[in-house]
């Protein structure tokens, strides 16, 4: 909120404090100063009011004039060369004479301009530092006396601090509030406006029940206290200069004396007020009630508003006239013809006002304060202040009856504070006298000061405007604020050991990313929120819907991501479009998937390996293929303790929007706690995105709760020292048979035949062959088998016997052929 320095000066003496000192004080009191602006005119010496006597074309310049200007008896008539065009002979204007220094350190002296002598300069508003108007001279329409120093004519200079008030301090949404804080900071007295005595209602005859006959509050919950006073015979007109100046300084446009007083008191006390034209109140009645559903009102901003039974309104006998605490209606406002006023000062509950502003999307200076909470105890005082100012600026007289509906909102609060507690929480000593002074400077008075065995105990009385202070810890903050947070002593960091491990999820992410970076991947960071279109590439349409936010901000960030690959592909596309050589990208982050109708948040590691279309190299390396990404997926899964090899299957049809059928695989299932996919990304989809070249990728997703800390240390297993026996076996199988299935069948047969006689150390495929010697529709898978016994060198005979037997057993079980 905007706070004027001149205005503050009415309550707290800041003379001698620089603007910086005040900013600093506000900052360390706990409010952010967003800007400091100078308004009004700066101090200007040797600038006076003058009148243009003659104006003649400059002999040597078409655009210039040579004028004679009367600058009053003290300075006489001067000759001035001027370039402006907006003035006439007889106009009064500011004249800067030799010796004047204008803003921007522009020194005025007598000089020759194109050969003509000029004694000074006639000035525009901008040249005087009072606004941006540079279109011509500042014409002084009020025709002030000649020779008057210009500062006596121009609005005085002011400094306006734009201060952000934290939500816990609604008491500071006004000049008195900030003045109170500054008075405490600088330890100087705070001077309240003198409005303790309410102007008297002259006599019983002046009861004007015809203007307001009654006030009824139906919605007592929303409006615990309502005051209404009548002022009769006012004359609406412009406010006096001092009042206009206050409002203008803080950015408010003066409207008329009554409205301006309302705004002034709001900015002074923080208490919103409202004035009605009494004659516009049907039935001379005020009813504070909830609106009826469908009732409507046109607010002062000219917009029709439809109300609901949740909206608190001020109504007359027939219709709502104000949305309570938010904005008045055009049907009851004060205008030039108003002669009789009803002034409202009310306490509305913040929840009610907040609900209304939220529903209507309408807020005002008034609602802003009510939403944060006003002090109901300042209400009578603010009303008195407003009445006396209206009488002073608009005339009229206070008449009866006066209305007060509702009771005092009870207030009594004391906090028992042990100064020792303050020291314990702060970790350093502040002298007792300083603590006391800090509290008292904020009008937190010590109702009792007891001395117990354990030390002093203070009973601190909390004023009604400090609803935020409730507990001893709140007073610790007040004491520290006033002591100065810059004075917290320096100390070494204390670190008593707490031997905890990092979360296993964090460890996993760290190791997975280290793996990828170790394999030359660049780690990327993409947004979690993606478009529905991207989500539809990864998951079924029913799931896409579930991933949608209820209130997305922009259309292309409407859904939770189901995969990291969308973001990585986008990063790939961006780099390709910028002509950069790009291939290996990786990311770790959260993704969201559906399983059995419920969404799951998963930890994910994703990577892509793209054909680098921009690459120019003197030596080309082996290309990436399916098995490159399989290897990485397998290694990453292993970091989470997952062996995905045995569960790898071709991608299903549903996965083929993201993956290329026949060239990609998936493994696992989230019902087991993890899932992985890898292979060639759908080629048509990549083309559609404008990506050139093939893109391989992989992603491993794990439920965070399934990632556990490293277990106990592994146990060493001794390995055989005797030589291995090697045999090769080529199987002829159906083209479609997965090699893993053949390998498992072979392993099973070998185990069955050999039993515990010796070990089958390894069975691995080393050749896949189609063509001559292998029938159509079949392929040959050649396996290498390694046998070893722990206690002896295997003999050829026993190995051959076993090898023969396992072949027979395998053929019997599977019908595979053996290729000799």
């Amino acid at each position, binding site marked *: 909120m905007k706070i004027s320095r001149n205005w503050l000066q009415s309550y707290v003496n800041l003379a001698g404090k620089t603007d910086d000192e005040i900013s600093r004080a506000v900052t360390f009191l706990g409010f952010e100063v967003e800007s400091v602006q100078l308004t009004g005119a700066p101090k200007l010496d040797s600038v006076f009011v003058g009148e243009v006597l003659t104006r003649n074309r400059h002999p040597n310049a078409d655009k210039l004039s040579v004028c004679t200007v009367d600058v009053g008896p003290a300075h006489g008539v001067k000759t001035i060369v001027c370039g402006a065009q907006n003035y006439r002979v007889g106009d009064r204007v500011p004249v800067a004479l030799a010796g004047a220094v204008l803003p921007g350190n522009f020194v005025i002296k007598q000089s020759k301009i194109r050969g003509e002598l000029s004694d000074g300069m006639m000035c525009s508003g901008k040249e005087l530092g009072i606004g941006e108007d540079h279109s011509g001279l500042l014409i002084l329409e009020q025709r002030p006396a000649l020779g008057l120093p210009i500062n006596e004519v121009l609005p005085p200079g002011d400094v306006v601090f734009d201060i952000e008030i*934290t939500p816990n301090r609604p008491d500071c949404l006004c000049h008195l509030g900030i003045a109170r804080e500054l008075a405490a900071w600088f330890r100087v007295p705070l001077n309240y406006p003198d409005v303790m005595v309410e102007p008297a209602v002259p006599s019983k005859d002046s009861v004007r029940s015809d203007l307001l006959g009654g006030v009824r509050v139906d919605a007592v919950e929303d409006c615990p206290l309502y005051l209404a006073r009548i002022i009769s015979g006012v004359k609406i007109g412009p406010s006096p200069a001092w009042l206009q100046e206050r409002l203008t300084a803080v950015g408010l446009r003066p409207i008329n004396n009554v409205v301006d007083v309302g705004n002034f008191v709001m900015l002074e006390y923080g208490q919103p007020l409202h004035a009605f034209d009494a004659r516009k109140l049907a039935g001379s009645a005020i009813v504070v009630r909830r609106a009826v559903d469908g009732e409507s009102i046109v607010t002062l901003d000219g917009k029709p508003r439809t109300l609901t039974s949740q909206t608190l309104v001020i109504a007359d006998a027939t219709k709502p006239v104000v949305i309570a605490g938010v904005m008045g209606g055009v049907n009851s406002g004060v205008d030039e013809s108003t002669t009789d006023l009803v002034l409202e000062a009310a306490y509305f509950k913040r929840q009610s006002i907040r609900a209304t502003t939220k529903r209507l999307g309408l807020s005002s200076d008034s609602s802003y304060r009510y939403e944060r909470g006003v002090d109901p105890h300042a209400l009578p005082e603010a009303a008195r202040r407003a009445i006396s100012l209206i009488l002073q600026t608009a005339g009229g007289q206070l008449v009866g009856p006066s209305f007060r509906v509702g009771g005092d909102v009870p207030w009594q609060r004391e906090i028992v504070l042990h100064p020792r507690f303050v020291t314990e929480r702060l970790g350093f000593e502040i002298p007792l006298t300083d603590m006391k002074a800090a509290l008292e400077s904020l009008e937190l008075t010590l109702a009792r000061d007891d001395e117990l065995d354990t030390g002093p105990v203070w009973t601190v009385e909390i004023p009604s405007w400090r609803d935020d202070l409730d507990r001893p810890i709140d007073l610790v903050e007040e004491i520290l604020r006033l002591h100065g947070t810059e004075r917290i002593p320096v100390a070494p960091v204390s670190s008593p050991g*707490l031997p905890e491990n990092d979360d296993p999820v964090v460890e996993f992410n760290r190791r997975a990313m280290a793996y990828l970076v170790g394999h030359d991947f660049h780690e*990327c*960071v993409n947004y979690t*929120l993606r478009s529905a279109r991207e989500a539809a590439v990864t998951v079924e349409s029913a799931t896409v819907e579930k991933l949608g936010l209820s*209130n997305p901000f*922009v259309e292309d960030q409407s859904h939770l991501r189901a995969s990291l690959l969308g973001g990585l592909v986008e990063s790939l596309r961006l780099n390709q479009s910028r002509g950069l050589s790009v291939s290996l990208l990786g990311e770790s982050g959260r993704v969201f998937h559906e*399983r059995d109708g*419920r969404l799951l948040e998963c930890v994910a590691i994703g990577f892509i390996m793209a054909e680098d279309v921009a690459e120019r190299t003197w*030596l080309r390396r082996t290309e990436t293929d399916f098995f490159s990404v399989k290897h990485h997926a397998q290694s990453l899964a292993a970091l989470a303790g997952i062996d995905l090899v045995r569960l790898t299957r071709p991608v299903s049809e549903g996965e083929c929007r993201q993956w290329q059928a026949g060239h990609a695989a998936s493994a696992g299932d989230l019902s087991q706690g993890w899932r992985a996919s890898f292979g060639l990304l759908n080629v048509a989809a990549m083309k559609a995105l404008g990506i050139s070249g093939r893109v391989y990728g992989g992603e491993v997703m794990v439920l965070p709760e399934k990632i556990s800390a490293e277990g106990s240390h592994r146990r060493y297993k001794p390995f055989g020292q005797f030589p291995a026996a090697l045999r090769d076996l080529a199987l002829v199988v159906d083209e479609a048979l997965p090699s893993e299935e053949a390998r498992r069948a072979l392993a099973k047969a070998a185990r069955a035949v050999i039993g515990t006689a010796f070990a089958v150390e390894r069975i691995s495929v080393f050749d896949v062959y189609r063509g001559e010697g292998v029938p159509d529709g079949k392929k040959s898978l050649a396996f290498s088998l390694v046998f070893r016994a722990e206690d002896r060198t295997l003999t050829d005979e026993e190995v051959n016997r076993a090898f023969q037997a396992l072949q027979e057993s395998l053929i019997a079980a599977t019908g595979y052929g053996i290729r000799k």
Partner: protein
Amino acid sequence: MEQQLTVLQQKAQAELGAIRTRPELEAAKARYVGPNGELTALMKQMGAVPKEQRPAMGKLINESKVRIVAELDLALARVAEAEIAAQVGPSIDVTLPSPDRGPGTLHPLTQVREEMCRILRKVGFAVADGPEVETEYYCFDALNTPADHPARDAQDTFYLPATADFGNISKRTPGERYLLRTHTSSVQIRTMLKGSPPIRIVSPGRVYRRDTTDATHSANFHQLECLYVDRNVTVRDLKALLDYIFTSLLGKDTKTRFRPHYFGYTEPSFEVDLSARHLPKVNKEWIEIGGCGMVDPVVFDGVGYDSKVWTGYAFGMGLERLAMLLYGIDDIRTFYQNDLRFLKQFA
């Protein structure tokens, strides 16, 4: 015979000198010194040599043999060398660049996060983690944020539809909504509920605000928060931690200061400014870097800790903001574009 030897000798010398391959060498070896070799044949004729000439002849034959064997050895060395030369190929222009990609790079946000975690690890903070989708309880209620607080508006916070159902996030109570966490403070609540004091954690993570994306705002960004709960934790300890963090990160000329502020979950609360002369974006100015305070007793009461016994502090900051200061980056969107010219600068 002497003449035969001389002829043989000359022939061998010529032939062996021309040997280039291993088969040639093996053949030559057999031809001269093998069991059926020419020199062997000559030696076999020794029987026919008169007895008195035998020693001299024997000596001559031996000398020939030594010479031929030496020639064979030479040839072997040549052949072996040629074989290696063939194996290794021509010599290489070592100034040619490696065509291999790399090195890989960690994203600067990760680097900053890890550096902060390392600094905090040294003084006993363990890294904690929690879900990005949260219930209102963990994100707001438990942190003393009242139901009508503006931060909870659909204006500022992303919510999931009322029908949303998560299998591995805490169950919501009737009427409670799932949302995208607006701060990592929810991890503090989860950690306190799961464990018991003393607690000392740092929780880095992704958070979400419903904000227009521009040079300094982003729909998601990253935070890092510290929480310490123990007996007798003081404001002075909190200030000491902040001084430690930022002098560790930015050097000894770094200073921090507290400005009183307001947060619902700490009391007293502060905003933290830092100044570090060598940072181009900081200069002599104070730059706001985060918020902190002493854990509000209400928060302790909410997680069942006795606020008369337990005290604590919390500190939080934005990682993007820190990275921007640290590296002199002026647009937050740069982090999310992943332009390789950006990423490679942080190798």
